[in-house]
């Protein structure tokens, strides 16, 4: 780890000012990606601006028919929230599947989506639920937010404040965890809501994506067997020492199927 200055932001505007004044500063929320990166000396920020404790960035509520979660809300809080369990149980179960207990008690929703790790869990839910990402500057639709591996629509100095999730009548998440890292090798969030049927896949490819062929086929007939033999583009699938792209595509299909079965069973 290189040396850096640690600053605990007093408010969102304070954080904003600190970031603006220090071009080499980085925002620290749960630190679940940033701290390991620092430990490996892969980043050398001048300052860490800690926004993890800001009350403006915390909290869970249902408002105007949407589930609103503050960016600094920890995974454990989402997983165990009575509000989330009632409104959107699939999101609570997704949060419960992130990392391990230590990660769930430190990592935050905002940190996860701002980092946009291609194998993170939250992006699948954000995309499948057509969520809105509220920042200190604007609102961004999920469909425009994720822009491929570790890339988002966030601009310099832009801070995720909260995320508004639509609440579909039914939804489900299924994840195949990587045996070493615990990240999603394929994670599929299926939602059946006002905007139609959504299938969002994380982990398998270079970034979270909607499997449009599956959405179309399932819109015609909401049944797992329509997924058999359905085209799934291998071009962007990840291939590495752990798994081939064919295997990841298979996992995406199997997890879609299982998420669908779970959703239809109302679990």
């Amino acid at each position, binding site marked *: 780890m290189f040396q850096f200055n640690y600053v605990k932001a007093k408010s969102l505007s304070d954080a904003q000012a600190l970031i603006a004044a220090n071009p080499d500063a980085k925002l620290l929320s749960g630190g679940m990606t940033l701290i390991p990166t620092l430990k490996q*000396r892969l980043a050398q920020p001048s300052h860490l601006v800690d926004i993890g404790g800001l009350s403006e960035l915390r909290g869970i509520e249902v408002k105007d028919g949407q589930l609103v979660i503050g960016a600094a809300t920890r995974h454990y809080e989402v997983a165990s929230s009575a509000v989330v369990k009632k409104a959107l149980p699939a999101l609570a179960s997704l949060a419960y599947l992130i990392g391990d207990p230590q990660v769930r008690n430190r990592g935050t929703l905002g940190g996860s989506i701002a980092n946009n790790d291609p194998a993170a869990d939250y992006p699948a839910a954000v995309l499948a639920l057509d969520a809105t990402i509220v920042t200190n500057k604007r609102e961004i639709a999920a469909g425009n937010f994720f822009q491929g591996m570790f890339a988002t629509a966030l601009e310099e100095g832009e801070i995720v404040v909260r995320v508004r999730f639509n609440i579909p009548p039914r939804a489900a998440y299924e994840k195949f965890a990587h045996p*070493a890292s615990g990240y999603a090798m394929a994670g599929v969030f299926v939602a059946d809501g006002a905007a139609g049927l959504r299938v969002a896949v994380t982990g398998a490819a270079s970034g979270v994506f909607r499997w449009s062929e599956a959405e179309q086929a399932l819109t015609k007939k909401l049944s797992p067997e329509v997924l058999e033999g359905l085209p799934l583009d291998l071009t962007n699938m990840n291939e590495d*020492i*752990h*798994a*081939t792209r064919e*295997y990841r595509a298979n996992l995406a299909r199997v997890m879609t199927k299982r998420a669908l079965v779970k959703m239809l069973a109302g679990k």
Partner: protein
Amino acid sequence: MSQSQPANRREDLRLITGRGRYTADVNLTGQLHAAFLRADRAHAQIVSINAEPALRQPGVVAVFTGADAIDAGYTQFPNLMSFAGRNGAQILKPERPVLATTAVRYVGETIAMVVAESALAAQDAIDAIEIDYRDLSAVVTVTDALAAGAPQLHENVPGNLCFEWETGDARAVEEAFAKAAHITRLKVLTTRVAPSPLEPRGSLVSYDAASESYDIYTPSQGMMMLRKQFAMLTGVPEEKLRVHTNDVGGSFGQRSGVYPEHGALMIAAKKLGRPVKWVGSRADGFMSDAHGRGIEIAGQLALDSAGEFIAARYDFLCDMGAYLTPTGSISHLRNPATLMTGVYKIPALYGAFKVVLTNTVPIAAYRGAGRPDIAYAIERLVDRAADELKIERSELRRRNFIPADAFPYKTPTVGVYEPSDFAGCLEQALTTADWRGFEARRVAAKGRGKLRGIGLSTIIEATGAGVFPKDQVAIEVDAAGKLTVYTVSMSSGQGHETTFTSVVADTLGLPHAMVTLRECDPARELIGNHTGGSRSMAGVGSVCKVAADKLIEQAKPLAAEELELEPSQVDYAGGEFKSRDGEKTISFVQLAQKLAGRDPHPMNTLAEATVGSTWPNGCHIAEVEIDPDTGVTEIASYVAVDDCGTVINHQIVEGQVHGGVTQGAGQMFQEEVIYDRASGQLLTGSFMDYGMPRAGLVRDINVGDHPVPSKLNAIGAKGVGESGCTASLPALANAMTDALRPAGVGHLDMPYTPSKVWHSIQAAKINPSK
């Protein structure tokens, strides 16, 4: 001896509440901190190195490079190979300066060491060292290393082949193969793994100029073994080296040897006159802690028409990495050679070994050290033979077991087996696992869309005989009558504080709490071996018994004096010396207290014994269930029946089996060190990519004892430290093969990753294995 009550581990409360004292917890006044520049490439010449910019960094005191290693003469690592190879050739030992001089040969090799006032300053300065390389091609597999025209690692090791050796009778095997009714062939690979003990490597060294001696704080498996190696590397006499080890967080053989960092820290501590400390990171660990296994074995088993084994031949390719560690080469040859017949009567045996160097982390002994590898080769071959000949797997084994009346059994290679009950272990395991009821479970699983399989292994091990000729144990008695037991072996999770003290306390008929253990006290020099090769209970635990017995005999005349009796009239039982008629008594504690004040205490005892190899054996049965949609395997049940001789503490035996089986399952399903074949880069350099097993991998292990007490030591123990690894590799692989057979999938090399299993099932749909 009296069997102790199963006691909870005495060390646990201290260790699990964070009160253990590990090497990183030790600090000395005035200490400096070291950091290492490591090779970022697999194979290159060092054209030039400029440490000046690092020296100008704040807090930096000194930078050491290969030139310092040459000046000190720290260039030749010890290697414990004790026999000659083919045509009498000695093993070719490559030079290995503790800091690289002219070339680097694996990613992670130590090149330079910065010493600074803080660890952070040392680490920061590493980046300022300027180094010019001339890149060379790298080889990371034995096959590539042996190929014609392969890049050469060392001038004195032509063709990267540093040793060839053979054992057994080639002609007898050839003749038997010529008349065999059936020959089964299988080539297997035990993958290279990173043992990754919980405690990272680290050391703290101080030098005393007046006495020209060193204090070396380091994790170890026992201080004498390591001290001897420090002396061999540095030329410093052993009596000038004090090795300090407190608690150790796992070792697995990886800590049995001296490392380059030890030597470099000694150079710095002497030159700078201040203690120098280094604590490695997990990243350092993956790229520089010795790896384990990495053996390819081509096996052939010949059977007659009655299904009896008549000969076997094994050809070994042993990957040693870029340099020879002290242990890796000998353990990967001697142990498989000793156990090449397994638990079977096979009249003709032959093994041929090649020891090969590659541009990878050096390999050392790792839990089992060649024993799991040969057991895996044998037991996969036996299962395949059973399949080919349509003989039930347990029946084929039973037919070929070394019979109970054949012990002591001299194998056709180098071992003499002590009495064991292979058939009894097998039967106990078959019953516990409900082997005969399995087919119904396979059918039920099929109904759920799953592939279920069952597999067994019947294995034997030779425990480590040790490097030193004997093991000594000292017992000291204090003024209150409490006892301290001293040994020079070292627990790194084995629970010696519980077992060694219970052996002494039970022998003396005293409460366990009256006895404490102190291992590796540099102030008490004892001769003795390190913890390794499953030997500690048989090798050191038994000497604890000898010492306690000797203490009683030594104290009898003292008690007689107190009781005003002839020594021959004194008996000892239940913590009391008493007259033969039972009229006069004095307790152990009373006697000890009465004699306090004499220095040394007259009841202090030193005992020793020479304890060679013992022969733990057993039968493990694994049941697995595969999800063909994802290729994921669940270990549905696991039964271990071990003959580890006399059981001193069943809970500790269970703990050893749990750990060993889980490490075996880790290797079988997810662990594997992977290097990029073209560049030699390490691709599994963190727990994000290296599939360390988690507790949930093997959820339920049924551990049964089947003791046949050993007559080779005073307590009858055979040992249990490694059987979990040795037996689980073949048991799990045989279960997987059984599960995959109906899907048309044949032998697969470990690890059975979900991706590999799924692809195999897909491929078999098009082209099934026969």
